């Protein structure tokens, strides 16, 4: 009895000793599969590089589940130090002033090595406040690009090295592909909301909402029912009717990738971070890459595309020692080597100029054609108020409304103008709700 007691006392003392030696930092994330393994590898690299802090990554499920878990934990006083939140949760996180520790402030308070100018403006612009302060640490940001099947292009008598640049070309190429029997459908897409509405608007320099797409305050309203968006949705509905376009489902469009992999559809639009998956699944054909198509009769097009993905938010209510560790870990994360490694592995954008330059030096982009399309696309022009991103409250729900209205459009229930008008009306109600709860 006495022996067991003393052993357990020893064990207890040992764990206490370890806890004193290393401050533990909890990081809740939403990266499953290969990305999750890579993330753990990065964390292990950090933990091995020093002995003062120990970062503990925990996989919490999907983006929505991770965010909900962190919020529930915050309400119960059990929050992690760092949580990964997807871009549409940004409005919610920003409005929660007492709950978050803005990254620029954290880095300044902890005296960490931090140069905001070194980050790519197109990436961090999405996550800065109106004074240009960085509120969260970009981790995995991507932007939609165009993938196409070179073999099908060749079979259809098209130049396999030329991606369609405009929507008129997408239509023309698709017709040729379908008429020649090279494939049964022209194109498909993931993320109707993100790719075919938000990015469509930014790419054509059209406002998504008032007050600089919501960056200017909670009093914003959606404006995506403009002529360019209406024309595009009209076209999509028409193309779906004649088979040029096949719909891949709501949200991420889970059914769209298989259509491209199975060579049913010759062109596929989705996140640049889908690149690894596309390459792995395109076993029987060669993949080409291009920028998103645009309408050449719209004056400012192409402008620049906007990002998606997630950033790391620091939550309030932890000890000074832990925040010191968080700041140091963030410095490590944004170092050129770590960033370049993560970016090259995953297809996510590098967040700093240094990481991009390192990739160029290493010859990565020359060896992997298409891997720099995304970064070229977001930096094509200096972002305008219409193209630096968007920031609306309750945006997770508004994304669902976008999908619903698009489905109503495709099923013939409403026309494009009707769908987008209804989307704006319903979305604005949700933005007002958010304003009411947070104003």
């Amino acid at each position, binding site marked *: 009895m006495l022996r067991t007691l003393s052993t357990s006392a020893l064990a207890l003392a040992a764990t206490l000793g370890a806890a004193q030696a290393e401050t533990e930092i909890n990081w809740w994330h939403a990266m499953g599969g290969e990305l999750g393994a890579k993330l753990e590898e990065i964390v292990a690299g950090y933990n091995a590089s020093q002995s003062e802090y120990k970062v503990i990554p925990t996989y919490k499920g999907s983006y929505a589940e991770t965010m909900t878990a962190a919020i529930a934990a915050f309400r119960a006083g059990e929050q992690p130090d760092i949580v990964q939140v997807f871009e549409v949760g940004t409005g*919610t996180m920003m409005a*929660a002033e007492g*709950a978050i520790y803005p990254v620029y402030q954290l880095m300044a308070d902890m005296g960490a090595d931090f140069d905001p100018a070194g980050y790519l403006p197109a990436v961090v612009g999405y996550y800065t406040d109106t004074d240009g302060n960085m509120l969260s640490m970009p981790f995995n940001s991507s932007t939609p690009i165009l993938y196409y099947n070179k073999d099908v292009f060749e079979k259809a008598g098209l130049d396999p090295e030329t991606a369609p640049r405009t929507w008129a070309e997408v239509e023309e190429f698709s017709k040729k592909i379908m008429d020649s029997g090279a494939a049964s459908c022209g194109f498909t897409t993931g993320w109707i909301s993100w790719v075919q509405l938000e990015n469509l608007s930014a790419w054509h320099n059209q406002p998504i909402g008032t007050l600089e797409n919501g960056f200017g305050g909670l009093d914003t309203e959606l404006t995506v029912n403009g002529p360019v968006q209406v024309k595009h949705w009209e076209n999509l509905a028409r193309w779906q009717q004649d088979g040029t376009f096949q719909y891949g489902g709501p949200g991420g469009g889970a*059914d769209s990738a298989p259509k491209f992999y199975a060579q049913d559809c010759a062109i596929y639009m989705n996140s640049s971070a889908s690149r690894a998956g596309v390459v792995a699944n395109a076993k029987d054909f060669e993949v080409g890459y291009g920028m998103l198509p645009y309408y050449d009769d719209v004056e400012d097009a192409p402008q620049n595309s906007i990002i998606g993905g997630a950033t790391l938010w620091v939550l309030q209510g932890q000890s000074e020692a832990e925040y010191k560790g968080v700041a140091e870990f963030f410095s490590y994360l944004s170092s050129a080597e770590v960033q370049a490694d993560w970016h090259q592995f995953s297809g996510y954008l590098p967040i700093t100029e240094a990481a991009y330059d390192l990739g160029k030096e290493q010859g990565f982009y020359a060896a992997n054609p298409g891997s720099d399309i995304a970064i070229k696309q977001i930096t094509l022009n200096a972002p305008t108020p219409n193209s630096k991103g968007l920031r609306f409250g309750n945006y*997770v*729900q508004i994304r669902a409304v976008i999908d619903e209205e698009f*489905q109503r459009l495709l*099923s013939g229930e409403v026309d494009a103008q009707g769908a987008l008008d209804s989307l704006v009306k319903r979305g604005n109600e949700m933005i007002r709700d958010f304003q009411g*709860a947070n104003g």
Partner: protein
Amino acid sequence: MQTKRTIFGNRWLPYLLLAPQLAVTVIFFLWPAGQAVWQSFLREDAFGLKTSFVGLSNYTRLFDNAEYINALKVTLVFSVSTAALALISSLLLALALDRTIRSSRVYTTLLVWPYAVAPAIAGVLWWFIFNPTIGIMPYLLERVGYDWNHALQKGDAMALVIIAAAWKQISYNFLFFVAGLQSIPASMREAAAIDGAGPVKRFWTITLPLLSPTTFFLLVVNVVYTMFDTFAVIDATTGGGPAQATMILVYKVYDDGFIGLNLGSSAAQSVILMGIVIALTIIQFRYVERRVTY
């Protein structure tokens, strides 16, 4: 009617024996339910930093909300169709067993299998079978000229969730119907047969009326099932879509609360749902208490 009655020596002993169960009920039901009721009167941001009391506004807004009215209608269609499909098909299966292969254990066991499948897995199975891109059913349906696409066609989506949800429940209903049928004395049906009543007539005048307590019990259980336990099936197959065509009340509670983080409205919706289930339970208990005999 005889009632069993145990006399306890100590006055406190029965309460002590009940205490664990009561504690579980209070901690896991009454307390959270009370919190939901309280939350339904509040408007709050996601993190709980700013809270204001808004009275019944969360409720009044629900009934002005076209999406909520739509969810009520969808739930009604879904519940009635699923319950009807599950009851009728399980009754047919039970009758088949009762008439011909009275003791076929294999048949019974096979029919009970679906009940052992977790709802989420059942949902994924159906999602896979009916997937418009890679599923086998749309492929077969296309050959007979039907273009199945539950990602866009509301009718297809509703049919899919009804079939998937009913399939899960048929086993349960089947077991009760078999037991109910076996408790009907064979002599009554034989007597009717001797009097010249055909099988159809015997079913409508003898079997069905004598089976009615079972049927009614199952009806209540099935309606409760369709309203609450079908969450996983919906989540795995349609996610409430397309355009909210399969957005039943319980899924909307989850969607607004856990995805949308609109806790006040979500709480008000769950309180309304709680009211519905309480009403259903009262109906059931009153009926079971009386137990009408024919």
